[in-house]
């Protein structure tokens, strides 16, 4: 960062944590929220063995250079005299890369070849505005003015076209990726999702009949939403019941107050309930590390690694259907700033875990040498849409990648086993 320019911005993650403490007023404020796509297929309670995609959004712009460290680059250590991750602390280093030591809880997953670390990933053009970058990332259809998110286009490719195509937990405001013609819904958890007096044998059925008669106009948004709500009412109970049983197989989401842990536990319940979820996205905020990146990111990575470890444990045999991928709106500057932090940059690291993943390091590594940088930052050599496409192709053969990411020139890195 040039010395005359203070690029720090509000740490919205901090703001959200502050708000979170206000129990009772936390509706929108979750540090970690999750949204669920294609939750329940039209075969209602029929257990399904379909594959599932979990998108973990690291909101705020995660510093890929701290997470997946290019330890062979002297430029990395030169640009970050106080905040570089020391080479001798790295997990599983090869000749080029090593993982931040806080990934330790996932060491077993790495050894088992179920974790891929991919570098120099991002959007084709740099964008350093949080809102705009996140919106472009989630819309992922550069040529179109339509606000239809890529997850919405993905769930549109399944034959079911069910009312539960998208569920967001933690906020009722849809993220851009889910917005579009395919129905979706939002909630903070799976409890209290029934019609009023729904448990009452006498009045419950009458309430349902009365609501169904008032919400019979499928031609209006409110009519359709009301109908979707009545279907949700029928099904949410089963998920809530599984949710109440708590984590299985000795899984512990740590720390216990982790919002990410709670969202992943709810997601695991949704998967275990066997009602046919296809895509889940979870928000994990607090990565906007303009100040003191070292300890902050160590704590973030540790929480993420602990919770993901618990998630796969909790899933048990269902884990063989679940692939997790991380996304963040942008990487951060190569050079540290005056506050031992890093400002908004460009190229970033992406991680994939679980089913179908061929573990290891992947990158068309552009190096950090001067001429290969983009405005002084790590360049992007892999379009993030190609990372997602590779997962979709490998795990969701019925999804047309061209529909989800129109106009994308396909390039595979080979980090997924063919389905």
């Amino acid at each position: 960062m040039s010395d005359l320019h203070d690029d720090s911005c509000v740490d919205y993650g901090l703001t959200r944590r502050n708000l979170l403490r206000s129990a009772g007023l936390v509706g929108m404020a979750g540090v970690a929220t999750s949204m669920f796509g294609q939750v329940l297929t039209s075969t209602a309670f029929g257990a399904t063995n379909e594959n599932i995609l979990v998108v973990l959004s690291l909101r705020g712009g995660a510093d890929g250079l701290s997470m997946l460290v290019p330890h062979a680059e002297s430029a990395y250590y030169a640009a970050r005299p106080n905040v570089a991750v020391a080479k001798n602390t790295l997990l599983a280093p090869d000749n080029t890369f090593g993982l931040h030591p806080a990934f330790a809880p996932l060491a077993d997953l790495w050894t088992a070849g179920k974790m891929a670390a991919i570098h120099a990933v991002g959007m084709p053009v740099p964008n350093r505005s949080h809102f705009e970058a996140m919106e472009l990332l989630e819309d992922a259809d550069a040529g179109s003015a339509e606000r239809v998110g890529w997850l919405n286009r993905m769930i549109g490719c399944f034959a079911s076209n069910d009312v539960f195509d998208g569920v967001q937990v933690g906020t009722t405001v849809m993220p851009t990726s889910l917005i579009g013609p395919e129905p979706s819904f939002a909630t903070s958890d799976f409890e209290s999702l029934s019609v009023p007096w729904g448990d009452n044998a006498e009045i419950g059925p009458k309430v349902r009949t009365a609501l169904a008669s008032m919400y019979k106009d499928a031609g209006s948004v409110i009519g359709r939403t009301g109908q979707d709500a009545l279907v949700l009412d029928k099904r949410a109970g089963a998920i809530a019941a599984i949710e109440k049983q708590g984590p299985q197989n000795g899984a512990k989401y740590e720390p216990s107050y982790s919002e990410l842990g709670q969202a992943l536990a709810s997601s695991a319940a949704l998967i275990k309930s066997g009602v046919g979820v296809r895509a889940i996205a979870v928000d994990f905020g607090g990565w906007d590390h303009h100040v003191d990146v070292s300890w902050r990111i160590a704590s973030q990575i540790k929480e993420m690694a602990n919770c993901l470890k618990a998630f796969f444990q909790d899933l048990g045999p269902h884990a063989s259907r679940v692939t997790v991928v991380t996304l963040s709106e942008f990487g951060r500057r190569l050079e540290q700033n005056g506050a031992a932090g890093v400002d908004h940059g460009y190229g970033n690291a992406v991680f994939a875990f679980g089913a179908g993943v061929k573990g290891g390091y992947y990158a068309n590594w552009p190096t950090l040498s001067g001429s290969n940088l983009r405005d002084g930052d790590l360049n992007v050599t892999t379009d993030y849409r190609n990372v997602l496409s590779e997962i979709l192709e490998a795990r969701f053969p019925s999804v047309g990648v061209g529909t989800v990411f129109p106009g994308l020139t396909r390039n595979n890195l080979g980090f997924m086993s063919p389905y």
Partner: protein
Amino acid sequence: MATVPGTQPLLPESAQQVVRRFTFGYNSRLAAQVLRHRDVYAWLEDQFQVNPDPDANATLNWFPRLGDSPATAWSMAQSGKYGGWQYGNDFAMYSVARRVAATNQVHEMMVDFWSNLLHIPVGEDSSFPWRLDYDAKAIRPNALTSYKQLLNAAVVHPAMSGFLTNYRNTAQKINENLGRELLELYTVGRPDPKAAQPHYSEDDVKNSARLLTGFTVKVFDGFAAGYDPKLHYVGPVTIMGQTFTNSAADGRAELTRYLNWLAVHPRTAKRIAARLCARFVSDDAPQSVIDAVAQTYLDSDTDIKSCLRTLIAHPAFKASAMQKARTPIEDVIAAERACDITHTGAGSDSRVENIAWFCSWTGQAPFSWPRPDGFPEKSDTYLSPARMLRSWTHHTWTAGPNGQLKQAERPTSRELSPPVWPLPLADLIHHQAVMMTGRRATDDVVSAVATLVDKKISHVFKYDWEKKNDHMAWMLTLIRTAILNAPEAMLR
């Protein structure tokens, strides 16, 4: 059988639409207020005057800590006696209570609208000691004046400086945060990513920030606010082709020139007009009404009342009836008003605290949006099935005349029932619907009620036991639940 009173609407449908759009919800007191004027437009002009509103002002007294000076608030938070988040909760509850109680409904609506455009989340670390002052001094007095005045008051306010880090923006070290949002969110809007020639560049953003230098807030240190010319960047800057000489050591006069220039920029006119139309016409308002409002905005030197007059007079407004969904917050407040629940305080577990929680539970904790771009104005965004289930449940808990409310009053079942006996079920339904929404119940609502109460639509209450309080209270609960849960009651 006597005619049942109160089963016909008091206001014509065109007046009801104005009321639904520009207030936080119908009730019979509001109807009476409108009826004291020649028509709804005369009422609106009266509302534009922003007469004294003691009922609304009284709600502030329920939150004694909101009277703390920024220095006191900071020291309370620092010592752990009263956290920033508690100040935030208080402010959120105060705002909700005020919207329920206010006689100046149009003013409250515009305060909400501008607060959302010039959004500062509550309880946020670096702005919370100044958050009430921002509402009271920047937004409220200017909500029905001109955007020029409003923008000038909001942008330099210490709460804004704290939230968008302008307090760290100095000639020596530019922090572009506020300078960027000023362009992107508050005035000309961000350039289309596909535009060949974006209307502002990253250099314009930095220059925008340069004109904002000099303002100080001692964030995390007493929060005193001031202006220090030594921190102001002096020298000419060019923004979107316009050069500001910026030669004075004290840059405030030049900043006013910049803000005034931005306020009357045609792109600002379009952006403000589009946002007004998104809130008050429809999610996808026709370009014709946006253009008309933008033209009035420019012709009237950004006068807000003139913009609203143009918007309401435009045919697109009338054509947009029932095309906006109530957001979760709007719905909670409208239900409170429809049920004529009046608050008397806001202590622990009070009704005011409950309804702030209902807002959150149905998906929209007041002022909690974490980013400066404010809650989405597109109301269909809030229509999710889970929200519907929770809103229906909230209506059910709110509709009945039974159950004690803490620090609040509501009509008894005797007060709600028309003084007529025997009493036809259909008439009772229309009586309740007119009282709560201003309109007669639809056929769908009438038959839904018949299902709920398990009676024929033609049923007539005539037996003594049917008149008994607990029975009638239960009937009223079911009837009023159906009225609030109908789709049209969740639209505005």
